[in-house]
């Protein structure tokens, strides 16, 4: 069971109650922050283009926030990847607010530890997360009709139908390290009330800009615990269904066409040049001829399965199970389940939870004199 999110202060977080629908409340908060000059930009989901397609945008004009849908259940990109892009060369020189999901925030924390971005000047706003729909649902334009049932399920602390399996089995539904957390669960008045927890001093300071009434409260509740248990059960079911041990991996990855979309969208696959693009994966004719002699046949492209295994290995300590890899796979390999299953076992061995705490050192760069001295049971 995951530890409760640290707020780093050892005191009850304050909360802000706005008499607005949750999403409108967040929009109002962002708009006030932007107009008051406390922040210079907002990264959030926005309806763009003539067809109102959902994408992330960096908004600087508060009028455009009318098109913002900060809580829309879709992940067209992992926001951590976008924030890494924005802050890789230099940290944000001016304050911006970012509205991201718990898994995106965790990935951002990991990327910051990996020196691929910076949290400086970012006001981190997240929400308890009911999950997102697969990308293809958004492309079909069916997401609107799903929204009523989505919010209904969130109110009751249930798993909405048709959300991605990565989300239905995610137990990290309460954000770690957020300055502000919008609570969506167990709030019967989610249509009329927006409840924002202020987890940090920074969060409180920014909220002061609009705060009318601040009270104390704890985001964790029985509803959230109940949902976590449902998802834990779902996760176990998914893990049991897919076997990646030993040679089973071959079967799982057989369909791979080598497009590497999974790596390109993965927030923690940050290498500038992937080993498999480096020339390191190229084989000369001798390789093919030797394999041909041995087996009578050889697959060309040869490294699709190997690539997947190495990727699993490379992301294992930092994988946050955001599920984008599975979303973009053109041949529907259940990559998110496979990745989470293997990653969790590695993370457990190191007693490490990626994205939990910015101060927690990455396992592979933390030296422990007495680590893994005896073989694991």
């Amino acid at each position, binding site marked *: 069971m995951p530890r409760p999110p640290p707020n780093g202060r050892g005191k009850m977080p304050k909360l802000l109650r706005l008499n607005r629908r949750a999403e409108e409340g967040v929009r109002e908060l962002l708009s006030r922050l932007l107009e008051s000059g406390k922040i210079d930009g907002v990264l959030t989901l926005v309806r763009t283009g003539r067809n109102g397609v959902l994408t992330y945008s960096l908004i600087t004009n508060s009028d455009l926030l009318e098109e913002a849908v900060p809580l829309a259940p879709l992940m067209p990109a992992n926001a951590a990847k976008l924030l890494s892009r*924005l802050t890789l*060369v230099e940290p944000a020189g001016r304050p911006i607010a970012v509205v991201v999901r718990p898994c995106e925030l965790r990935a951002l924390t990991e990327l910051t530890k990996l020196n691929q971005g910076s949290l400086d000047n970012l006001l981190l706003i997240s929400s308890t997360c009911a999950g997102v729909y697969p990308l*293809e649902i958004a492309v079909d334009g069916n997401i609107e009709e799903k929204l009523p049932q989505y919010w209904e399920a969130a109110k009751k602390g249930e798993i909405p139908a048709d959300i991605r399996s990565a989300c239905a089995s995610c137990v990290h539904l309460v954000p770690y390290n957020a300055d502000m957390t919008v609570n969506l669960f167990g709030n019967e008045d989610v249509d009329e009330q927006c409840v924002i927890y202020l987890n940090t001093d920074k969060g409180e300071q920014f909220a002061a800009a609009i705060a009318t009434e601040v009270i104390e409260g704890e985001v964790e509740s029985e509803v959230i615990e109940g949902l976590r248990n449902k998802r834990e059960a779902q996760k176990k079911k998914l893990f049991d269904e897919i076997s990646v041990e030993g040679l089973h991996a071959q079967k799982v990855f057989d369909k791979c066409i*080598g497009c590497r979309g999974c790596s390109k969208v993965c927030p923690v696959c940050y290498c500038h040049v992937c080993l498999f693009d480096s020339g390191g994966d190229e084989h000369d004719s001798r390789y093919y001829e030797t394999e041909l002699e041995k087996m009578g046949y050889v697959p060309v492209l040869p490294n699709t399965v190997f690539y997947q295994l190495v990727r699993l290995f490379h992301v294992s300590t930092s994988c946050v199970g955001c599920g984008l890899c599975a979303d973009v796979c053109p041949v529907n390999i259940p990559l998110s389940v496979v990745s989470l299953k293997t990653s969790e076992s590695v993370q457990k061995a190191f007693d490490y939870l990626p994205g939990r705490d910015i101060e927690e050192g990455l396992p592979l760069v933390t030296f422990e004199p007495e680590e893994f001295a005896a073989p694991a049971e």
Partner: protein
Amino acid sequence: MTHTEQGAIFPADGGVKEGILDFLKQALSKGCFDAVLIPAKAPGGDSFAHLLIRDESLLQDALPICPVMPVQGAKALSSLTRLGKGDKRIAAVIRPCELRATVELFKLGQVDLENICLITTDCPGALPLADWVKDPKKAEEVFSEILKGGAGESLRPVCQVCDKFSATGAEDLHIGTLGTKSGSILLIPGSPKGKDVLDGIGLPVVGDISQWQETMSRLTEVRRGKREQAQKELGASVSGLDNLLDIFINCINCHNCMRVCPICYCRQCFFDSNNMKFEFEDYLKRAEMAGGLRLPPETLLFHIGRMLHMSLSCVSCGACEDACPTSIPVAQVFSLVADRNQKAFEYTPGRSLDESPPLRVYGEKEFEEVEQSHAEASAKREGQDA
């Protein structure tokens, strides 16, 4: 067509697939080549892959005419020979669009063809990869309908309007399967290398191929008409920046299209390089100019850049569209642009190994109309400045 006017008639009583496999087995056993590169069911049994096969017995599971194209054959050939040819002589059984991409890669120095015998077949087209992934059994049923001449609307959109589905002239050997007498296939040599294979198994090249040629010309005409029509319709809906934005707005920047494209061979794409990484302030200022900046940025620029880089060699194979997770009609848009660009240069990619890519050929009097308008515009600008 640059082929001889004759071909060898090969028995295919058990069906086209069996006929082709029989021919390959014979050629393999007679030592005409040492191995065959051909699509086959992957060892797991629920997917297809290009396999390099040495053993005749393993050819049994090969599919010379595969229902889907998970990997472009030119990409496979490049993987096999990019670091130089080997000692083995290999017959590659590929689709005409894969052949054309191979020819382009040859010109670009990404494939070595010295020990490769390129064998193409008349191509019935391929099903969308997503359809096959969703329901392989149903897809195989639909594909068998297609092989009988039906269910054409189930093919990938680019295959439905492909007008280069048969011999193109650059193959060593073409296998005619449409418009041939039932119970037989035509083996038509396109080069001395291909002729050697037929000689090697003792097949005389004396069969009349005029009936097959007529069928091909007729089908090509039909397809050409369909292609023009489809491009006319698409052209109206994608021209101009706003329309392009609408088409590509779902792009999530996964670069799958670039990865699976046989022509996009750069080891590191410009758009993944440090050239496209900017300072925070730069992004924020761009956002401030318009009120907001869509993220990831430069998605449309990526597609336009890619178009510019590869459209003269684009063979409309459709691999990009198959791999797009957000169902953008990438291949249809790209082949529209490619056709227009190629027409401007009077260039057909993959037609011949000897034809240089247009950007490598210096024509002193080329595109004068462009030069002219450019010169006028700049003279006008100078006039205004003065």
